[in-house]
């Protein structure tokens, strides 16, 4: 399941819903991305996330379907927010449920790595000296690439 929304989410509630009444689930992993205060060289005060409505949902669904092909998952969830976010706010939630922890951990890691290079979101960081679009970093590309070379 994927969701692209402006509103915040309740991680506990989302995780509970994801595995409710599914007793094949033995492991549930999750990753939450938060707005942190430091950009490359400056302290940021807030962040605005822009996305490409339509393509974003397609890409997230595509990425999720790849995860389900590669690992035995009982359920998965991606929630990604857009709009203006403050320090400490939740940006993204990725959760994977499986019979065993190994598949749940790997699929969750894969999803966040791939999402960072394939889902059309862009971060605008607001600092004391103005706003600046975040540049893509090679480390994210390398992290995503790791999953394609296996």
């Amino acid at each position, binding site marked *: 399941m994927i969701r692209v929304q402006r509103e915040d989410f309740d991680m506990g509630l989302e995780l509970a819903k994801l595995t409710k009444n599914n007793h094949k689930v033995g492991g549930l992993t999750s990753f939450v*991305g938060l707005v942190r205060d430091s950009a490359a060289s400056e302290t940021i005060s807030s962040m605005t*996330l*822009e*996305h*490409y409505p*339509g*393509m974003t949902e*397609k890409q997230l669904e595509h990425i999720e379907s790849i995860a389900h092909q590669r690992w035995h998952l009982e359920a998965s969830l991606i929630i*990604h927010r857009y709009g203006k976010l403050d320090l400490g706010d939740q*940006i*993204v939630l990725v959760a994977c449920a499986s019979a065993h922890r190994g598949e749940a951990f790997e699929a969750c890691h894969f999803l*966040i790595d791939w*999402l*960072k*290079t*394939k*889902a*059309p*979101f*862009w*971060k*605008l960081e607001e600092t004391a000296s103005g706003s600046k*679009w*975040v*540049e*893509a970093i090679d480390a*994210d590309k390398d992290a995503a690439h790791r999953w394609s070379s296996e």
Partner: protein
Amino acid sequence: MKLLYFAWIRTNLGVAEELLDVPSEIKDVEGLLEWLINRGESYKTVFSDLSLIRVAVNQEFVELDNAITKGDEIAFFPPVTGG
């Protein structure tokens, strides 16, 4: 043809979306970019370094030699930074 721009491409061009009558001899993304660059200085500046530009045709990532036709939705944006 419907063109969409995101992030700094949108802010530098000052437009998020435009419907353009693109000449029929333009057959691929590269040709479209050349045509856009000749439309004005802001396009020329934004598209001066194509290594910074990613392209989607009908919401799928494509390379510059990808074919395009009149009804397509073509988006130009920088490498993504979500997550």
